[in-house]
């Protein structure tokens, strides 16, 4: 079995609220292997987003260790953390995912621009990921001209454009209707299956939990159950050996995206 791509040990995160320390995480430990499709489940305030933020180098733990792709991310400076996020992690957030002044194409291109990818290669990559999420025809639309589902698809396209090993998605379906959620999950699942991208989603949406191979339940800042960990790791390890390095021009992800386009729109 591969080394974990995400390794969190005894992570504690305390926030100061007035005179009181509030513990958002109370010693969470979690290992995720490359290619897993995992859901962090739990009610609001259970610590899902806090844990996701630590893994995504968006926040620092009060104590404990967080390793991503073998890198201890707790020792990174602001600038180093930004560079690490840029080059290793794709993000899909619940809302306000896109830069409002940029078109769908430009949003998907943005990370590649920051990475300094040459224009020709950028164009190829962006066209590829927009095709993968089924938004070729909406490429010139700005976020306010897209539906919620389409916006989330653009966010997924942006997240995978630079071919990160990990995509972190915080409540990606929270603002979507059931059909749109299903199509988005299909898309992410396909990307996971075909290209071996590790997906870690936080959600309390039953649909997400059903689609995840592994569900880690959290409550009051603690991981209370971790269903399917061993099986998920083994499956993802096997799947990785057969996964393509990047989404091809016509993939099942694209097919699923195309099929779901009407419901997403």
């Amino acid at each position, binding site marked *: 079995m591969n080394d974990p791509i995400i390794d969190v040990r005894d992570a504690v995160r305390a926030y100061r609220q007035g005179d009181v320390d509030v513990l958002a995480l109370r010693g969470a430990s979690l290992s995720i292997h490359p290619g897993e499709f995992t859901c962090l489940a739990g009610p609001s305030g259970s610590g899902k987003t806090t844990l996701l933020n630590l893994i995504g180098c*968006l926040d620092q733990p009060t104590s404990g260790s967080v390793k991503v792709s073998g890198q201890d991310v707790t020792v990174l400076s602001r600038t180093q953390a930004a560079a690490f996020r840029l080059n290793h992690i794709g993000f899909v*957030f619940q809302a306000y*995912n896109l830069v409002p002044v940029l078109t769908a194409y430009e949003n998907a291109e943005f990370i590649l621009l920051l990475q300094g990818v040459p224009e020709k290669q950028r164009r190829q990559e962006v066209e590829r990921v927009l095709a993968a999420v089924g938004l070729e025809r909406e490429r010139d639309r700005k976020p306010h001209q897209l539906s919620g589902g389409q916006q989330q698809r653009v966010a997924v396209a942006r997240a995978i454009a630079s071919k990160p090993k990990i995509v972190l998605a915080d409540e990606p379906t929270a603002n979507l209707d059931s059909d749109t959620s299903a199509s988005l999950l299909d898309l992410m699942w396909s990307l996971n299956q075909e290209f071996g991208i590790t997906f870690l989603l936080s959600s309390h949406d039953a649909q997400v939990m059903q689609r995840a191979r592994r569900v880690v339940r959290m409550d009051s800042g603690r991981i209370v159950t971790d269903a399917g960990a061993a099986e998920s790791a083994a499956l993802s390890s096997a799947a990785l050996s057969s996964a393509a390095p990047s989404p091809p021009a016509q993939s099942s992800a694209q097919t699923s995206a195309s099929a779901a386009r009407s419901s997403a729109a």
Partner: protein
Amino acid sequence: MIKVAWRNLWRNRARTSISMAAIALTFGVWLCTLSMNDYVYGQMEHAAAQHAGGAVLVQADGYQLRPVNDRVIRDGDRSFAALGVLPEVQTASSRVLLSGLVSAATASVAVQLSGIEPGADKAFRDLGRYVQSGSFLAGGDEAPIVLGSKAVRDLDLELGERVVFTATGLDGDIQRALFRLSGVLHTGSSDTDETAAFTTLAAAQRAFGLGHAIHQIGLMPREGVSRHALVESVRRSIGGQGLEALTWDQAMPDLVGLIEMDKQQGAMLGVVLFLVVLISIVNTFMMVVMERVRELGLLSAIGLGPGRMAGLLLYETGLLALISTAVGGGIGLAVHAYVGTYGIDLAAMGETIEIGGIALTDSVIRSKIDPASWLGATLSVFLMVLLSAAYPAFKASRLAPARAMRFYE
């Protein structure tokens, strides 16, 4: 990044347009003020050189520090002849300068009596055009005197009446001479109209027994020769003769100081004007950061580092400054074109421009572009606008992405 900055700039068109208009108008007004001031200073220096009696002045050694009546160029004719043939000299004029008291039947006023050669002196300053009544040393009087309008009023004189001029002679004794009022000047400069008096060189020399002695030789350089080049040439020529040569600005340090102070005040006014505008721009950019805190958090989350984050806001400000200065420059050029062509006649408004007792000969204000001062103003504005975004940019770069994205929750 420039594309994002550009589009961000136009997200709130009204706000951006107002900020831009404020910067552009302030900058435009500043440029107009600069170019009109530069014209006025140029005129002022010209007027000062005329008032001084030449771009370069030659006097007895020490006269500048202690301008007393007995400190003279003994052989004025020889010095005048030697300097008049220098290749850098366009025009030369000898003069006697006597500080004293003019007395009429009922009153006395302190004046400086200049004994001049009217024909030669006209090349330096055409005082004839200020004649209010009578003539400017044009008659055949043996001892004519031309006084300023205020002095004439104080002395309650009429043309043709006699006055006594009292001054210290070469031997240190008080001497008196009789003159007849032949003309009244009104220059608009209160100082000149009160304390200036003129007679012919011959009359002054005769009245005070000066012989060929004079107090000053005024020199004007040929076209293309600077006063500094002329004064160097003159100094070489007069070496060892007990004479001193000064440029007009060395001879009138107080006036130079006043002009410099006026320039500094103009610059300060410009800076203060801009600071007021910039405070509002800082406020605007702080609002921009606060409004977009979530979006900035998103950009940070997906990998935009602190430096690039600050850079994004600075790009926006840079573009704002670029457009504003271009528009402001356009306003400045348009006003320059108008004022340069038609001018603003202060006389029509009953105004005169006077610094240090010297009034401008031309009451029409025009505009003159000094590339250095325009460039300096443009760079200052650009820098100030960029500086105004420095704090908001710093705040943006310090945003913690996780907190920023939950800012409104």
